């Protein structure tokens, strides 16, 4: 999988490139708008990560020009938190997703995965399984080791989200936005408490732990056994 990163800040470009390389992506970096546009026109990428604030030609223009040239590679753009108009504009002219700076790398990775997976055959939805943990979507039933586990509606929604993204780091922001429709950071650890409630029900009484904490970042549901 090949990713083009257009970002003028060397520090951000460095850690994004390093992180993506470690996650088995090929990464090209362009440091300004024209360079990025040039690379996007001459090479075939699976995904482009585009900063909005770029020297010479800003990200919005690059994106517009790319779409004009019939380059339909998925685009994630990066923007400052306080520019809602940029976000609206970016999405309107054909960006697929966005992240506000400062962003967490895992958040970016999760979105990259989500965009690349898009359009592929979805996991069968009626039954999700990791190790001996089974979630039956149709019957709203959760089984661990063939034993029924009772969950509250929110816990159920949280578990379904984890099970649809197995092995992927799910950040606190993603949980509060996707599960609780809650749109900003809180200093409290309320998300952790929700996750720990879920963990108590699905993991506590079992030898094989499935829901793991990624410290400082979020959680991942996977069978490490």
């Amino acid at each position, binding site marked *: 999988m090949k990713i083009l990163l257009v970002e003028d800040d060397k520090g951000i470009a460095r850690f994004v490139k390093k992180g993506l390389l470690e996650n088995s992506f090929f990464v090209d970096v362009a440091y300004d708008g024209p360079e990025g546009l040039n690379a996007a026109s001459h090479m075939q990428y699976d995904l482009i990560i585009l900063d909005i604030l770029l020297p010479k030609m800003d990200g919005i223009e690059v994106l517009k020009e790319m779409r004009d040239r019939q380059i339909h590679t998925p685009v994630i753009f990066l923007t400052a938190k306080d520019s809602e108009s940029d976000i609206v504009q970016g999405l309107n002219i054909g960006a697929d997703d966005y992240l506000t700076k*400062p962003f967490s790398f895992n958040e970016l990775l999760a979105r990259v995965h989500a965009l690349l997976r898009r359009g592929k055959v979805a996991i069968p939805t009626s039954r999700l399984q990791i190790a001996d943990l089974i979630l039956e979507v149709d019957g709203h039933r959760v089984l661990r080791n063939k034993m029924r586990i009772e969950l509250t509606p929110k816990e159920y929604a949280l578990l379904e989200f984890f099970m649809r993204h197995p092995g992927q780091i799910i950040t606190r922001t993603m949980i509060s936005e996707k599960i609780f*429709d*809650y749109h900003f950071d809180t*200093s409290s650890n*309320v998300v952790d408490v929700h996750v720990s409630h879920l963990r108590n029900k699905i993991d506590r009484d079992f030898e094989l732990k499935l829901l793991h904490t990624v*410290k*400082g970042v979020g959680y991942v549901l996977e069978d490490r056994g």
Partner: protein
Amino acid sequence: MSSKIGAKFYRRTDIKLTLWYVLTFLVSALFIFGFLHLRLRHQLIKEIDRFMFDEAEELTAVLSLSRNEVDFLMRFEDEVISRKYYPLFFQILDKNGRIFYTSKKFREIGYEVTDRVITNAKNGKETREDIRSSYRRTPFRMISTPLYREGKLNYIIQVATHLRYVRKSLSNFISNTLAALPILLVLGALGGWLLARRSLWPIGYIASKARRITSHSLSERLATRGTSDEMDELIETINGMIAGLESSFKRMAEFTADASHELKTPICAMRGEAEVLLSKERTAKEYQEGLTHFIERFDSLNRMINDLILLSKSDSSQVELKIVPLRLDLLIKDLCHFFQVLAEQNRIGLEMDIPEEVTVLGDKVRLQQLFTNLIDNAIKFTAQGSIRVSVEKNEKTVLAKIKDTGIGIPGEEQGKIFKRFYRVDKSRSRETGGVGLGLSIAEWIVHLHNGRIDVQSQLGQGSTFTVTLPLFSPTE
């Protein structure tokens, strides 16, 4: 440079004012002189008329008494014609208007008897006429009086004299006023200029003083003159403006100082931690823990910076809101469910009393933030007991109350808790992770929604925050 332009401008203003004064003076002087001239002319002619009536009376007496009329008339004629200043000329008509007697020089007047004179005379009335002949410079004045005998018109007596001296008096009057007018105008201009200077002086003062006041000398004020007129009012308005600027500058300076302090502390801690971590060889686990801690600190710094950006944008009202009708009861219920687990973890209750549907106009994310801040605070500052969230509505408003049984806020602090970076107990808040922006943001959000926020609290008993928002009714 700018001072010169200012001075030039204001000199121009006083010149303009002076010119206006002069113009006003000129117009009113011309008006008054014209009026006086008319009055004077009228008076003078009236005097002449009276004088001639006297003479006509005398003639009448002569005509009615004396038998030897013509003889007597000639003597009278000799006397009046030779007068130096007002020689009289007269003519006597009989009852049919035919000339009965004409004095010498009367013909020189070039007068023709008019029908008006005869008609008036037949009606027993006098007639006054101005005679202007084309070949004489001086106009004449003539009166005609009827003479009745035994109820019948007998004679018409016409007496005339020239108006040379009336004209002379009038032209004297005009030349005098024309001589006086420039003096009047010069005096008016001078007075007007002095007045303009006097009333414009405070503007110059205000301008020069205001120019000297910069962001460093905002404590200075303009001195009023104690006259409590418009200028004093202006000075006081400007002083009020400077005071407003001063306090907002002060607030901003405080805010910047507080913000940089709050930012420095965690950065300092992070740097120290990194230094210690690097000072000797450590296990991978230790590095991992250190870096994890770092991420957590970064996250909290990031939250604080977001809050600061929000507040600074709130000052310049740049925040984009998406105001839509939304169900406040559901929003608060969802939040309570979200925070329920946190309350349970702290072994305190979180009860809801939200019996009915409530719709308000608002921005969903901001209202979430508002009630999060309040519920979050309630949980943080309540060690035991419970938190009760209630929503009730009146005719026009919604009251959302968050009541806790926490540590409470001392009375004297209650007014200050909405101030930025204000914390009742700094050591305690540091351990709960707040920097004292939550309530500022809450208050700002409430104001954005045209609402109000109040606090009632007793130390050791708990606090109640009440948010009042206008109710949305779709019929409006």
